[in-house]
């Protein structure tokens, strides 16, 4: 109606309604029992009309997550105190809210690969880091993943890699999963490569991989097959040692 400010949208009305019902709280708070979660804007009942829809989004985005204490993290991971401090500072700089969601993760990762498209691989990584599968990577997840890769034994590392490849986390890698991974890796190179990437390159690479890894030729690679084959491969063993000097 002319002269009156616009009324709140239907969606906002519905959300306000739902908030009153305890069972239907919006799942904006990550269920991290051990961590302290603070709602930056605690106002559930907002005064103005217009403010509502904006504030709802606001509430979601200002969820602030604080990690456990430094001592606990020190116990859980193999990093020293100073290293944890440096890691956290870098983490917090990019993600002031304390957690990374997939979008953010992809964006950060893509800054290292300007030429190609690293979003698929980044999402695989995200799933690998997000151990409790709640859609966000907190600092604990981040640091525990890094601890395994950078400070763990070779077996730990191989395990972690297997976990990465196993997209549906069912304990074995199928050819399709491997193909997806391979394609995402090749995507990161981008279009301008020498020699130019052929269409069948990922598939060939997957075949190669399975030939090497799949002992019983049943079309899937289990964790034991994977570990066994990797330990026999000189190159892989040597490359695993690269990670000792990253931090």
């Amino acid at each position, binding site marked *: 109606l002319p002269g009156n400010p616009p009324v709140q949208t239907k969606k906002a009305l519905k959300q306000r309604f739902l908030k009153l019902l305890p069972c239907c709280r919006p799942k904006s708070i990550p269920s991290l029992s051990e961590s302290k979660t603070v709602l930056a804007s605690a106002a559930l009942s907002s005064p103005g009309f217009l403010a509502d829809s904006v504030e709802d989004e606001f509430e979601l985005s200002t969820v602030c997550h604080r990690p456990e204490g430094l001592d606990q993290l020190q116990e859980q991971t193999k990093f020293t105190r100073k290293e944890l401090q440096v890691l956290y500072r*870098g983490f917090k700089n*990019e993600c002031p809210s304390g957690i990374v969601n997939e979008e953010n993760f992809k964006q950060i990762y893509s800054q290292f690969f300007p030429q190609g498209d690293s979003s698929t691989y980044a999402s695989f990584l995200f799933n690998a880091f997000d151990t409790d599968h709640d859609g966000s990577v907190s600092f604990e997840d981040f640091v525990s993943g890094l601890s395994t890769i950078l400070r763990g034994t070779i077996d730990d590392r191989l395990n972690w890699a297997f976990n990465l*490849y196993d997209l549906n986390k069912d304990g074995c890698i199928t050819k399709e999963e*491997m193909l997806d991974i391979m394609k995402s890796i090749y995507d990161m190179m981008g279009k301008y490569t020498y020699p130019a990437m052929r269409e069948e390159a990922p598939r060939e690479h997957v075949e190669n991989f399975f030939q090497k890894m799949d002992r019983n030729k049943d079309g899937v690679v289990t964790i034991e097959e994977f570990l066994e084959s*990797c330990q026999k491969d000189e190159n892989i063993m040597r490359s695993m040692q*690269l990670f000792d000097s*990253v931090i």
Partner: protein
Amino acid sequence: MAAGVAAWLPFARAAAIGWMPVANCPMPLAPTEKNKRQDELIILNVSGRRFQTWRTTLERYPDTLLGSTEKEFFFNEDTKEYFFDRDPEVFRCILNFYRTGKLHYPRYECISAYDEELAFYGILPEIIGDCCYEEYKDRKRENAERLMDDNDSENNQEGSMPSLSFRQTMWRAFENPHTSTLALVFYYVTGFFIAVSVITNVVETVPCGTVPGNKELPCGERYAVAFFCLDTACVMIFTVEYLLRLFAAPSRYRFIRSVMSIIDVVAIMPYYIGLVMTNNEDVSGAFVTLRVFRVFRIFKFSRHSQGLRILGYTLKSCASELGFLLFSLTMAIIIFATVMFYAEKGSSASKFTSIPASFWYTIVTMTTLGYGDMVPKTIAGKIFGSICSLSGVLVIALPVPVIVSNFSRIYHQNQRADKRRAQKKARLARIRVAKTGSSNAYLHSKRNGLLNEALELTGSTEEEQHMTKGTSLIESQHHHLLHCLEKTTGLSYLVDDPLLSVRASTIKNHEFIDEQMFEQNCMESSMQNYPSSRSPSLSSHHGLTTSCCSRRNKKTTHLPNSSVPATRLRSMQELSTIHIQCSEQPSLTTSRSSLNMKSDDGLRPNCKAAQITTAIISIPTPPALTPEGESRPTPGSPGHSTNIPTTTTTTTANIVKVSAL
């Protein structure tokens, strides 16, 4: 790669674990980190305010001062911090740039100060973030315009000094009437004649008096001869003016194409065409039309009025808005005219005979004039007519504020430019005084140096202390440098201020004397650099006495009156002649006539109590302002100016003058 993400590089490297098992060939060796040091805090002390940050934060941008080894030059070993003697406020923004990767421009900061700081720290302004970039560019453009303005006006003023050709002086006179009285006179005369011409045109058509036959004649026809004479006179003046401008214009082609000259031509053409054309019946109609163009003379007033010029400039700069206004009006007129025509077609004896005829109604209605000569009679016509008038208000009201704001902006800009020009004059005067002060300081100190040597001869030491105090180490080193240059080239510096040199020259001509003991010590064996006609030398020419003195001081007539502002005092006092005189000094006088005063101190060269004073050549030195310990100046020896050339060589004045030059 953004700097902040560099912290995530270890993560990216760790994530490469996914490629290892599938790689076919061995991986390259990883780079080792030599002397891997722990990240440490760096203290940056900027003018006393301490900032601290991690070393790695600064190293994110290695091609800036703080990110490279260049900062080691500022490292203070004692306090173990990096000290920068710069503005701490701006440094805040700079450090934030390292931290966040975004450079912001604070609004309260002066644009040139900010630019300087950026240049110092080696940061390109292009990195300024989007949020602040527009503001930065705007301010920068404003500043550049202002500088250009200043340069222009400076050029205008500086042009006065070198001699211009006759043509150039004329052009300047035309463009800036305030440069000379002749130009001003010309300006007002042309203005007057424009007014006369316009009034004539107007009055010509007024009916005055009747002629037998009951016919009212306009004045133009009644006093035809008088008006013709007036017109002729005006046109003469305009023609002469135009031809003179054409002659003086630096680029005639450009001048001919300029708007003002076109107006001039159009203003005087009708008269000449009228002369040429005969009193033929056929062409007289056309001739009458031509006389309309005479009204263009009124536009010649725009040379005399800046406001008019601004208005014209505004209209030109708002061309797009005006165009839009016109376009939308035309659209609306056509629409409404059509509608009204068809609405009123039915009614009998309707004035809306055709669509073009309805145009008149639409225009009159939309501009809310409403003459009432055409009025809709049908109901539909009335409805559409009211809609037409309502929409007219809207369509016209919309572009007008844009034009108004443009005009206001340009007008204020012009006012600001004028104000700046006025302020600039005062500023330049002060700057000039400061400059001459510094160059005179050099001469002053040189003299002091000479004096010191002389004092050693005379043996009085307390004067020495008077002389040497007051110059800082930097000053004395600078003066020593200039002195070395003088010795190298064999030339010496002159006082740069024409005013001072003029004054000095009057003295100089009366000076000379005999150098006596100073000759050996203080003689500048260098050749004197004879000055241009503008600044006659202050030099005392030891061996060149005759030639110097033979030069008449032509500038005596130009001596400014002796009321010199206090700011010039110090510079005046530093004029380079030194007087050694014995016993008392004559009292200071502040009149020009003192120049002619003969000092009546006898000169006793070997008198022990010789006091060395610096001469104050410019008389107006009120006693209160003499600097530390300098004795009262002697207006010096100048004898009577008229007799100088003849008497100089023979005059043994009481004062030994040694000029530092």
